[in-house]
């Protein structure tokens, strides 16, 4: 079994906070994800972009954690975008209707540009 606990890193680019999600997004990712969110939104960014390029396994608890981020973003008026999702997890984001509440972009540049346009 190849499991890897999630680690996160926060980068700021053009007024947008990018959270790199590395490893599995499951129950054990909660602490790391919450800390990354707090770090990313300490100074409210134009948007938060979730980078799933280096994410492994996402289970239903991971989906719930992302729903939690969406709720936090909605409460503070911070849009959330995502990129780097595999076709399988993109399908899951669509089935769960997560995709209705966060924009999904193919790469980081388009995600950041999309955030800038939305806030303009």
């Amino acid at each position, binding site marked *: 079994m190849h499991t890897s606990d999630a680690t996160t890193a926060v980068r700021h680019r053009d007024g947008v906070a990018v959270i790199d999600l590395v490893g599995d997004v499951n129950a*054990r990712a909660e602490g790391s994800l919450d800390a990354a969110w707090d770090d990313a939104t300490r100074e409210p960014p134009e948007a938060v972009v979730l980078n799933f390029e280096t994410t492994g396994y996402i289970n*239903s608890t991971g989906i719930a954690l992302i729903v939690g981020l969406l709720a936090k973003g909605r409460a503070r008026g911070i849009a959330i975008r995502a990129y780097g999702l595999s076709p399988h997890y993109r399908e899951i984001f669509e089935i769960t209707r*997560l995709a209705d509440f966060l924009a999904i972009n193919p790469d980081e540049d388009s995600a950041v540009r999309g955030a800038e346009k939305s806030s303009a």
Partner: protein
Amino acid sequence: MTTLTGSFRRRFLGRSTEASPSTRDHTDPVAAPQDEVAPVDIAPNDPLLVYLQSATGAVDVAELELDSPALAELKAAGVKLAVPLVSQGELIGVLNLGPRRSEQDYSSDDRKLLDNLAAQAAPALRVGQLVRQQQAEAATRQRFEQELEVARLIQQNFLPKQLPELSGWQVAAYYRPAREVGGDFYDVIPLPDDRIGFVIGDVTDKGVPAALVMAATRSVLRASAQRLVDPGVVLERVNEHLCPDMPEKMFVTCLYGVLEPASGRFRFADAGHDLPYVKTADGSVELRARGMPLGLMPGMAYEEKETVLAPGDSLLLHSDGVVEAHDPQGAMFGFPRLKEAVARYPGGGELIDRVLSDLRGHTGADAEQEDDITMVTLARSPVAAAASNGLAPTHQLVEFEVPSAEGNERLALERVSAIVGPLGLEESRLKRLETAVGEATMNAMEHGNGYRVEQPVTVRVLTEADLVRVQITDLGGGVPDQDAEEPDIEAKLAGLQRPRGWGLFLVKNMVDEAHETSDGDEHTLELVMRLADSAAERPDQGGQDAHQ
């Protein structure tokens, strides 16, 4: 002075000292060499012992008249006084004194002093004896436990790390050593031409010697099985290798059989091991073959027999720890009961579980296991069992268990993926099945088994013509599924639903069909995936048949 041990061997001081006894160290067992004489052995039936036991104080040896070899020896050694050391009514030693160096007789004051000394020394001496005895026992126990640990390590190191996954077969094994670790072992040997060798054996004796002989037997058998085809010839070769170096009074019983999974043909030979049982449509049958245990004498031949395991048949290899387990009244579990269990119960891992349950009922749940218990089962999946009613035949590809612990759903989904992948399910649909298996297993571990690691989730993978079924079973029969609420993301974002609760929703949307069943004890979620992509024929994503 000396203490009386189990052999009543003691030592005494053969010369008197200069002063009164109170100033001398008569009790010092390491007295000056000139005061030492050879120890005197007192036989357990010597009347002197009885006399000293009942004496009320110091005894004049010279005046004592007994038909006692020890007394004669004491007199010959010049002992004048013998002062019994009695603690709690037990004679634990004797203080022996020679003549005073002043050549005067012991006075009544001397005797009184010696009696007082004996009264105080005896309990102290007894305490010393007990401490030394306990230390010796503790050291023995520690050495024993260390030896057991070494034996356990050797045995466990030589047992198979995993069992083969054979299409259409279920292989299961159970091994539990007794506290003193007997010599049971089993092995599964991959052979050329997709054949599999199965071994079960038992070395006489226990502990490290048995473990070492087991390791040697296993190694020789593995090597011989690769070079030789016939099971009987393999056992002959192993016997020839073991005989020259087998320790005295030790030997190995062993059954070795070779399975051809495609045909179900099982050829075997037996070296004095308990015979296996096969469950067939007509009940259970004992498979017989003659042969002497390994390592007893060279030049032995081993009869070879064969049987064909038909679809639905199940074979049980077992060790004597099963049939020789005793109930509190001393009655053995016995061969007839085991044979009946094979006939009555389903095969495979379930047979092992049921037999173990029966064993616990026989011995009592708290009884210490007397001997190693080993069982290996080969169960051939029923095929075409439903063909007569027009349904497609079902083949079970694998059955395995996953301990209910957080994160273990990955074990289930990766193993199912490895089994189903080669069947031709396209990549995107395989990913969907993986997610469904992961979520269903997580649900089973959490809601069915409450994440109790000792309550595993059972996963079965079956194929049927153009589809695959994955059955995930937990022990939460009748417990309402906590994930039954249909998740609504808008309600979740508005705080009207908890963020979690996506599990069953994902399951239903990832596979072609999902069915839930419960029998009161067990709850099973069956996932069905057609091997050919029939997405175009299916209704919309959310419309699968999911019975709750």
